[in-house]
């Protein structure tokens, strides 16, 4: 039994089950299931953190692995390093804390809340563990979708609708910019695998301008997600109106994951081994 995909599979499965049978369950049962699921994810990601300390764990979905390390990768992989796994366990821990807090915070709450929080958790784990550029975009968008729904969860308050709307529109436009960057990188390198993109960029003689433009497009969606100046305008609206347990996740981990994704893209795809792709970024004083 492979451990690697479980932090994503477990919360998604639990969310689906809660949505299907949630109507017939007592609220405390749903709370308990959600707490148990996030605790399980904490344990799983902790185990992955310790396992990955001895070397990056690479898991190929559907076993579509390259024939040898030098072959061109076609499949989609998780590349688990200690930092990513540790961030995933922080995310799981915060979700666990948020669920414990919402035990008495919400007077009444439906299965939708638990399911959305678990989908949010799965997206955060996947974003910190994935080794694929397009996967990063997809999980960024899943995070946005779950986040928007959670942000506007108290939809009887009209401010929370405004916050959710702002959040959705600005983050979606940012994600489109990222997708544009991913498309440009794919067009130039023929791969979506972060490490392979890094290898090709280091070897290929692409123009400096192209690599810079592709980098800026790719990171812009994550800059919006991490609310870095000057992309921060949505943050005040969304954070102010989100329910407190959701705010724990927004401020505690979602924003930081945006920065982490930028670091991951930069150091793996654009500066493999800590070396910026041949001299390209030197002049920008990175």
């Amino acid at each position, binding site marked *: 039994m492979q451990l690697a995909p479980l932090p994503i599979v477990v919360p998604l499965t639990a969310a689906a089950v809660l949505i299907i049978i949630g109507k017939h369950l007592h609220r405390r049962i749903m709370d308990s299931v959600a707490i148990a699921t996030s605790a399980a994810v904490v344990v799983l990601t902790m185990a992955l953190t310790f396992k990955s300390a001895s070397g990056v764990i690479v898991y190929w979905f559907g076993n579509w692995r390259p024939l040898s390390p030098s072959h061109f990768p076609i499949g989609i992989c998780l590349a688990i390093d200690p930092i990513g796994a540790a961030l995933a366990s922080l995310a799981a821990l915060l979700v666990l804390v948020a669920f414990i807090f919402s035990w008495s915070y919400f007077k009444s709450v439906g299965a939708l809340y638990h399911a959305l929080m678990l989908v949010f958790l799965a997206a955060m784990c996947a974003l910190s563990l994935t080794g694929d550029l*397009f996967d990063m975009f*997809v999980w960024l*968008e*899943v995070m*946005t*979708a779950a986040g*928007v*729904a959670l942000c*506007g969860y108290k*939809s009887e308050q*009209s*401010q929370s*609708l*405004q916050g*959710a*709307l702002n959040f*959705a*529109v600005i983050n*979606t*436009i940012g994600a*489109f910019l990222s*997708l*544009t960057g991913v*498309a*440009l990188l*794919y*067009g130039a390198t023929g791969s*979506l695998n972060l490490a392979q993109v890094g290898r090709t960029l280091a070897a290929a003689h692409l123009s400096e301008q192209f690599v810079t433009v592709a980098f800026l497009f790719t990171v812009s969606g994550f800059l919006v997600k991490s609310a870095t100046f000057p992309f921060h305008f949505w943050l005040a*609206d969304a954070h102010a109106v989100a329910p407190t347990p959701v705010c724990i996740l927004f401020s505690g981990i979602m924003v930081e994951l945006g920065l982490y994704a930028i670091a991951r893209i930069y150091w793996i795809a654009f500066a493999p081994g800590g070396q910026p792709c041949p001299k390209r970024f030197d002049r920008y004083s990175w």
Partner: protein
Amino acid sequence: MQPVLTYAGYAAAVWLFLVGLYGVVKSRHLVNLCLSLTVVQASTYVLLTIIGYRPGLPAPIYTDGLKPGSAAVDPIVQALMLTDVVVEATVIALLLAITIKVHRDAGTADPNQVDIMRG
């Protein structure tokens, strides 16, 4: 012939992006805003498709007539585009749900008239 078509594709992607962005900024109705967002989104479809386009090659459907292993248009970007459609449909559905809520609460869907939408 080929460069003209390729450049036209990239130009269309840029144009769609800018037009959609203008629509998002200037929209006076939340439904209009959602539709403008789908226009922005359409630019990524065009871009992805044009990146996988190979002049003169057929669609990558290997049935009769097209032998496995022969050259075709890149299917990966088309798969990416379909994933993009699915992901964004979710976001647009959420936005439309919020729009209905706003209209029910405030009686209007004009962002400038809805009191809470200021700022």
